Each structure stands twice: as structure tokens, then as C-alpha cells.
């Protein structure tokens, strides 16, 4: 379970302060798939880095399974948007996936079986000896997902993972995330700027305001668990939900316009 309580982040430079996150409180239950969506520049990445223990918040706490986060917590894996930079170009696909497991000091046999299973789960059998840069963008992001899955996290953070792949690949990868989530029972916090993607993937959608960020609204996606690119997206309920999210994001943008953020 992931708890975010009163999270606040102010970036300070010599001359000014920029309040990125004002006050964020939400919970992601064990085994839940929650999407965070917000207007561009709303501090989604800042939030994710605070949750991942990569960035120190200015206030508030993040708890993973009741333990406060100070530095990257055990049992959490992150999939970054920039797969090309997140994968190590000097290592084969197999070594990229295996390296975090070796850091965990798992026995060699266990590492090999986890790597094999993870690559199979994302549909990349046979690419073990290739280098990431020899693969297409979508396949590279699959490698990054395999690396995260092989790590056996209880919580998976995904930071706009499909923002840089084409629409068809994106649909495939969305279905991949849904099926991995259902099979592995992992908790997923999925950050995106794509409203359709958020509604299609999530059990819940948390909408963020423009920066300085608060929670604009929260929505339970009452679509059937079995989702399908064709039928789910054509479902009137899906359309109604996405309209609601869209309106909230628009409202957040408009609310942000009069004051361009406090600059002190």
C-alpha cells in the first residue's frame, strides 16, 4: 500500500521559490491500479520522483507499506518515460534486466529464471543478446517493463511510459500493463497526460490541478475488469468517464490562468 500524506515540494533557487506541489494526499491500496492525470507542467514527474524516493519533498510524507520513504524504497520499481536513456546501451537486453537482480544479490539461477520469465511476459523472447538500441522504441520500453517486473516489486511506478511511442504500439503496451497487473497482483501508480489512457487503464483516476498542484478530483472507473481496446473505448460509460476527466482537467487549466503561480 502506498500513502501520500500532505506532500509538498517547493523548488528553491537563490532568487525565487517555485511551489510545484502544494498539498497532495491520496492512497493507493495494495493491488490497485491508479492513474494520475493532469495538465502538462502540473508537477506529475516531481510527484513521482518524491514517491520514488529520488527527490526529497519539502513537506509531508510518503509511506510504502507503512514505512516512511527516505530514499528509494525496497520493493518499488520505476519505469521511466525515456526508455532510451533509462536502459544502459552498453549492456545486452538480458544484462539490463538482470543487473538490478544481481544488485539484490539473488542467486544466479534465480536471476536467470526471473529474467527469462520477465522477457517472456512482455513478449521479448529471443532478444536476450541484442542491445537495446537495436530494438524499436516500443520493444525498448518492453525491456524496461521487463526489468521492472523481474525485480518483483510490490509497487510499480510508471512515469508517462508510453508518451514516446506510436499509437498502435501504445495500445499494445497498455494491454500489456493491464495483463501484467492482473497476473502479478502488483500495485501500480501510472502517471500520464493522456485522459483516454488514464480511464482505459485505471481502476481509479486521480486528477491533478495545474501547478502549484493539489488534487482536483478523483474518480472510480466503473468499467468491467476485462477491457479491450475496441469495445471498452466504444462503451458509452467510457465516453462519459473520459468527458468527466476532460472537464476537470480543463477546469484545472482555467483556474490556473489568472495567477501564473506564486513567485515570491
Amino acid at each position, binding site marked *: 500500500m502506498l500513502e501520500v500524506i500532505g506532500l509538498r515540494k517547493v523548488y528553491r533557487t537563490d532568487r525565487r521559490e517555485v511551489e510545484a506541489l502544494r498539498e497532495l494526499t491520496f492512497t493507493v491500496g495494495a493491488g490497485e491500479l491508479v492513474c494520475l492525470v493532469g495538465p502538462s507542467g502540473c508537477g506529475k514527474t516531481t510527484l513521482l520522483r518524491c514517491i520514488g524516493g529520488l527527490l526529497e519533498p519539502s513537506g509531508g510524507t510518503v509511506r510504502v507499506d507503512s514505512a516512511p520513504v527516505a530514499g528509494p524504497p525496497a520493493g518499488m520499481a520505476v519505469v521511466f518515460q525515456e526508455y532510451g536513456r533509462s536502459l544502459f546501451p552498453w549492456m545486452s537486453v538480458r544484462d539490463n534486466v538482470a*543487473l538490478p537482480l544481481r544488485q539484490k544479490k539473488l542467486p544466479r539461477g534465480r536471476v536467470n529464471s526471473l529474467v527469462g520469465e520477465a522477457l517472456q511476459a512482455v513478449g521479448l523472447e529471443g532478444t536476450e543478446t541484442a542491445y537495446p538500441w537495436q530494438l524499436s522504441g516500443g520493444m525498448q520500453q518492453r525491456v524496461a517493463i521487463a526489468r521492472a517486473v523481474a525485480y518483483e516489486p510490490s509497487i510499480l511506478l510508471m512515469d508517462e511510459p508510453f508518451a514516446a511511442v506510436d499509437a498502435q504500439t501504445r495500445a499494445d503496451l497498455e494491454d500489456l500493463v493491464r495483463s501484467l497487473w492482473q497476473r502479478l497482483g502488483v500495485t501500480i501508480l501510472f502517471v500520464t497526460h493522456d485522459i483516454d489512457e488514464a480511464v482505459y487503464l485505471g481502476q481509479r483516476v486521480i486528477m491533478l490541478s495545474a501547478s502549484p498542484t493539489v488534487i482536483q478530483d478523483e474518480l472510480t472507473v466503473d468499467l468491467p475488469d476485462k477491457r479491450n481496446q475496441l469495445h471498452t473505448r466504444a462503451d458509452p460509460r467510457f465516453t462519459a468517464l473520459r468527458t468527466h476527466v476532460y472537464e476537470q482537467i480543463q477546469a484545472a487549466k482555467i483556474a490556473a490562468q489568472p495567477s501564473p503561480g506564486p513567485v515570491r
Partner: protein
Amino acid sequence: MILRLSGLAALVALAELLPRLGVVSPDYLPPASGIAAALGREAATASFWTAVGDTLVAWAIGLAVAVTAGVAAGLLVGAVPVLRAWTASTIEFLRPIPSVALIPLAVLLYGTGLGSSLLLIVYAAFWQVLVQVLYGVADVDPVADETARSFRFSPWARVRHVLWPTALPYVFTGIRLAAAVALVLAVTAELVIGSPGLGAVIAVAQSSGAVPVMYAMIVVTGVLGVLINVGARLAERRFLAWHQSVRGEVAL
């Protein structure tokens, strides 16, 4: 390749023709065939190979020391921001000092022995490596580093698996530059100080009027330079096959 070799052949032909046609005095520039003959005679003597060996030993030891020290210092200084800021102005002051300006100091400390050559070589080559390693360390991709942190890599694992591979292409550039500079300084030290090696042979040949031998030795230093550069390039290809400067076309 054929074009390059034909360019070289034209140069040799020109060096043959100019003295023969009397454009330049053969006393100052003997024809290429004369230089080649002198080279052939020298190559048959043991003293020539001793001189080549002396030069290469000084070069190799000096380069090894400079690379080891440059990489170690570069990783340390580059990885610790405080050290980087603290040493920046010192590095910028020491780096441009021409190594040859240290010749009197070298003679004072080590006379005409190997130590003098090494001092000059190490000083000149060290900065080449250090500066490249500093660039390399600064080039670490923040996303790659955050990936390593998010998977809870130890500080040592981050150096080993992220920082070092990122810096490696720069290290190779540094080694290639340092290898060339080290040869220049090795020959310079032998020429000026008289420590044993090819440079000393060139100086002796010049002062005794053996002009073709002098040219032959100059050619040998040039050949050594080419071989060193080719070797460094091959090593780069071997160890940086993954890097975009080497890997060429990406198969999608």
C-alpha cells in the same frame, strides 16, 4: 584506401624527385631511396632496435602511469562536486604549462636517465586523460543514474555500472590523445636531454652529418606514431562496440 595509399606514394615520389632534380640540395634532403637505404642499414643493427626499445619503454611506462593517475584522479574529482570546484582553477593553471618547460627541472631531478623522460611524458599525458575523464563523468545521463538509484544500486555499483561505462568513450579519447603526446615527449626528452632512445640517435646523426640516417629515424618516429594511433583505434572499436560513435547503423 587506394586513394590514401596513392597520396602517400605521391609524397614519397616527390621526396625522391625534388633532390634529384636539384630543387633542394640533397645535402639537406636526401632522396627517398637514400633515406630508405639508410633505414635498411640501421634496421640491421642491434643499436637501432635498442633505441626503438628505449623510446617505447619510456613511452609505455609514462603512458601507463599517466592513464592510471588520470583516470583515478578524474573519477574522484569528477564524482565529488566539492573537489571539482576546489581543483578547477588549479587544473586550468597547471594544464597549459608546456611539458618542455619542465626540462630543466627534469634534468635537475633525474639527470639524463629514464626518470627525466618519464617526468615529461607523465606530465604531458596526465592532463589529456584527466580532462577527458572529467568530461566523461559530467556526461552521466540523469535518467540512467535515477534508474540505478531507483533499483537501489550501491554507490560502488553506480560507479561501476553507470559512471564508468559512460566515461569509457572519453577515457579512450584521452588515452589516444595521451599516447600521441607521450610519444612526442619521449622523443623530445631524448633529443634535448639526451636520454637514450630514437631522439638521441636523431641528435647524434644530425651532429655527425649523417643526414639520411637522421631522416630515417624521423620516419621511424612517424611510423611509431601511426602504429600507436591505429592500435588505440582498434582498442576503441573492440571495447566500445555499443557506443554510437562505433556501432554505425542502428537496425530497427
